């Protein structure tokens, strides 16, 4: 546990003494903020128009028209940016030859993997948290439902955490950070869009829908907490971490 903590601290120090974390966090805030602005502006236009139409205005909901689209857009931004956060975790150790230290110190592979994983998760957490001021601002002027906003955040966090575990895995495969980022981006995008196959084939339909990131996130952003969705993200994370572990174990024979 203490060793995992030490590895995590080291990774966080490296994140925040190089531009990586700052760039990823600020780009996320810029993009998510831009999307939020557009969505909210659009909603206020709708509200103005709805002023003269009582039927329409009774159906206007901040949760429906602002928070759900915001969270799914923010999820796409995470998909784009998290591979950049994770790409250096193992690839750079290999390129800088620091893995020779890492793997000869009294550390287990599990401690190394968890330490690195948690460091990226901390950055993810800070990044999501930084959107809170504007996301919660409407609560000061009106009364949207709180629960779907909280589950939306939970979904964003779980989704990001499983993205990170796959980024960690692709980073363990190569010493080239760009290759690690592109590969992880491709895997994540494919997992996101794999449910498209259900439009053209019924074969494995339910299974494909189940393994796609998309549907599980949808539920959470609507305020529905289904243990199946939580279990889905946790198992995805475990798969990513396990694959990383397998890579490290195999590599012991080849270096």
């Amino acid at each position, binding site marked *: 546990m*203490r*060793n995992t*903590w*030490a*590895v995590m*601290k*080291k990774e966080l*120090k*490296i994140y925040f*003494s*190089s531009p990586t974390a700052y760039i990823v966090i600020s780009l996320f805030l810029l993009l998510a903020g831009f999307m939020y602005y557009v969505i909210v502006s659009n909603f206020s236009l709708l509200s103005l128009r709805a002023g003269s139409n009582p039927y329409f205005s009774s159906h206007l909901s901040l949760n429906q028209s602002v928070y759900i689209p915001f969270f799914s857009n923010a999820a796409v931004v995470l998909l784009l940016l998290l591979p950049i956060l994770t790409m250096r975790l193992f690839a750079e150790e290999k390129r*800088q*030859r*620091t*893995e*020779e*230290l*890492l*793997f*000869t*110190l*009294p*550390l*287990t592979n599990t401690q190394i993997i968890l330490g690195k994983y948690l460091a990226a998760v901390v950055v993810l957490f800070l990044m999501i948290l930084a959107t809170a001021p504007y996301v919660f601002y409407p609560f000061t002027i009106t009364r949207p439902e709180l629960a779907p906003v909280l589950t939306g955040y939970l979904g964003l966090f779980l989704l990001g955490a499983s993205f990170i575990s796959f980024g960690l895995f692709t980073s363990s495969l190569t010493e080239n950070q760009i290759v690690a980022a592109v590969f992880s981006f491709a895997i994540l995008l494919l997992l996101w869009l794999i449910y498209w196959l259900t439009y053209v084939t019924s074969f494995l339909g339910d299974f494909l829908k189940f393994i796609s990131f998309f549907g599980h996130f949808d539920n959470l952003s609507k305020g529905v907490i289904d243990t199946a969705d939580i279990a889905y993200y946790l198992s995805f994370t475990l798969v990513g971490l396990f694959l990383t572990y397998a890579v490290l174990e195999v590599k*012991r*024979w*080849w*270096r």
Partner: protein
Amino acid sequence: MIRAENLTKYYGNIRAVEDLTMEVPDGSILGFLGPNGAGKTTTMRMLTGYTTPTRGKAIVEEIDIQREPLRAKRLIGYLPEVPPLYPELKVRSFLEFVAEVKGLRGKKKKAEIERVVSQAGLEKVVHRRIRNLSKGYRQRVGIAQALLGDPKVLILDEPTIGLDPKEIVEIRALIKSLGGGRTIILSTHILQEVTSVCDSIAIINEGRLIEFGKIKEVEEKYGSTSLEEVYISAISRGGEA
């Protein structure tokens, strides 16, 4: 004490090290010699548990490093050929990380870091980022890292490579001062380094150990007092075999 028992490493069909057996007793400083590509680095990587041997065992203080890696690794300080440093970190944070992983906490950690900082002559640079250090200082940070936790066995892979003459003299003096009960394996191409620092030598060629013993005994065996002559004739003989 560190012992190699029939250590063998193949990469596919390529032989890196074959059937290497040797024991470096407590307090001995071994010069590990051999041409480039002879298998020195691979041997050291197996001894430190970085690489898994194809066959054979690496044993530190009677602990098999493959069976009980954590216990064995605690006893070893290792400086690889390229000093393993995180350029983004400050010297102090880097040493803190290594100290914590080696199980040092609180006051003990602080005292131990201070000890290796002064031993490696790093006082002036502890608050600087490793990225901005000269090669000589980087090497010192690499050595300081290996010394943390006062390991019984030190394995140094070409610690003076690429340094300027003044730095070489300083690092050599530092290594010499590290003896005193520690078991050290020092790989190098500089034979005068071996005569000035080590008490015994191992010569390896094409993955096989061809000479091993006290420097004097090996020199007597070859009827020469120059380590250079011994080295050249051992390597060329090994080549014929």
